[in-house]
């Protein structure tokens, strides 16, 4: 992998730091009029999701990380691993472990396309689409006529996720959910 100098650090660049692949979020040039120049860099550790703030002397470099974001369709869970397949016609499959899937497990639905982040060809994270349509498998019976009034109740979706939904929603209905906030958007 190539290495990158501080002046090449741009948002989105993937580099290795302390043995983990990181995504550069922000890079600020700091320099006293007379004296050493620095780059104050914000990086997101792609393994832990945590944000780091590090300062480098300008001109220092970091090794690039072999990190790719690839669209893949979710296939199945074998009890231990989650299996995905590329959508480019290659039918190439990848297995992601619990650490990589993380909280996204509750949004996994067969045939939906997810973004899989690969580091050295291994999945390290799974990002769901912003909106996903899921069926309600369990909720209290809907209240007839209550279509506009406030109030909400919990509903369990086909993937196991629980979201707050309006009182008029019934079991068996398909809902549109915002995966970023975990909130109900509308009936699908």
């Amino acid at each position: 992998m190539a290495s990158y100098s501080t002046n090449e650090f741009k948002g989105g660049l993937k580099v290795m730091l302390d043995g983990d692949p990181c995504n550069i979020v922000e890079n600020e040039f700091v320099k006293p009029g007379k004296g050493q120049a620095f780059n104050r860099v914000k990086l997101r550790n792609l393994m832990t999701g945590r944000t780091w703030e590090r300062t480098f002397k300008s001109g220092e470099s970091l090794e690039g990380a072999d990190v790719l974001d690839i669209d893949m369709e979710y296939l199945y869970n074998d009890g231990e691993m989650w299996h995905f397949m590329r959508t480019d016609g290659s039918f190439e499959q990848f297995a992601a472990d619990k650490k990589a899937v993380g909280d996204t497990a509750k949004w996994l639905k067969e045939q939906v396309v997810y973004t899989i982040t690969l580091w050295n060809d291994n999945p390290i994270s799974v990002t769901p689409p912003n909106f996903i349509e899921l069926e309600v498998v369990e909720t209290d019976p809907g209240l007839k006529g209550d279509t506009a009034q406030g109030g909400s109740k919990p509903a369990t979706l086909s993937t196991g996720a629980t979201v707050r939904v309006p009182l008029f929603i019934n079991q068996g209905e398909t809902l549109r959910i915002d995966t970023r906030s975990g909130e109900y958007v509308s009936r699908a």
Partner: protein
Amino acid sequence: MSADDWRPGATMEVLRARAGLMRRIRDFFETRNVLEVETPVLGHAGSSDVHLDSLSLMARTMKGDERLWLQTSPEYHMKRLLAAGSGPIFQLSRVFRDGETGRRHNIEFTMLEWYRPGFALEALIEEVARLIETVLGCPFPAVRRRAYRELFMTYLSVDPLLETADTLTMLRHQAARYAGADTAEWSRDDCCDLLMSMAIEPCLGRDGLDVVVDYPASQAALARRRQDQDGALVASRFEVYLEGIELANGFDELTDADEQQARFEADNQQRLALGKPLVDADQTLIAALRAGMPEGCGVALGVDRLIMLALELEQIDSAMAFATARC
């Protein structure tokens, strides 16, 4: 390229205000009988300053193909004018510093530089404060002198002038703590520069102007060195801070040709150690100092930053028509 990329970074309102502020600067010096001069942007000498990278280009001249340097400041040429008997002079010039790009940096920027033969550092500090007040259009509630050492003691509880292994360990520790940097191999000056920029600077220039004085002798650049009240060797230099932003850098100017030659050589030794290209000493400056430059003080001020402060702009890009990224 997007459809709007041709547009300037500054609004027309900012550009009009900028023109007005430039006029105020010129008026300020005219009323004080300081002569406006223009010196070359392109010269035969680059800056020797270890932490400044000059841009250069090849030009066809009377001598054939020659490497010429875009000036990082008009200092060398203005000092030659002083030696030639110009008296007090000022200049608004474009200067270039390779690699300096950021929220408060642009590779090409406007510098106000002026020299006051016969002035002591205190008198120049006063004048800088008056100039900034004039441009901003309001007097400062306070203009405070803050010694470099006192700032480190106050904000970081470490004496940066104390040359002991313990102090270096503390400085490295503080630098690592403030900036998450791997500082195990850093020099004293590296740590001091980082702590000054990231820990101390943001606190300076609030409710008034802060003028930092008595820099470590190792950071003298082209300023004289002298002993402070505790006998430590310090540089006769000041820097002016407003709203956490470094605005100006002033020197009690070095006038000794031999000392100047020695500083050039010391810069090159440091450049060698850092793997940076060596810079030929500007022999015309040495010759001018040998002929005799009057004692006095000089200061350089970042005009774009002053405009950012005057107009409350967050980015240098919005204080100028076309920052380098838009050119």
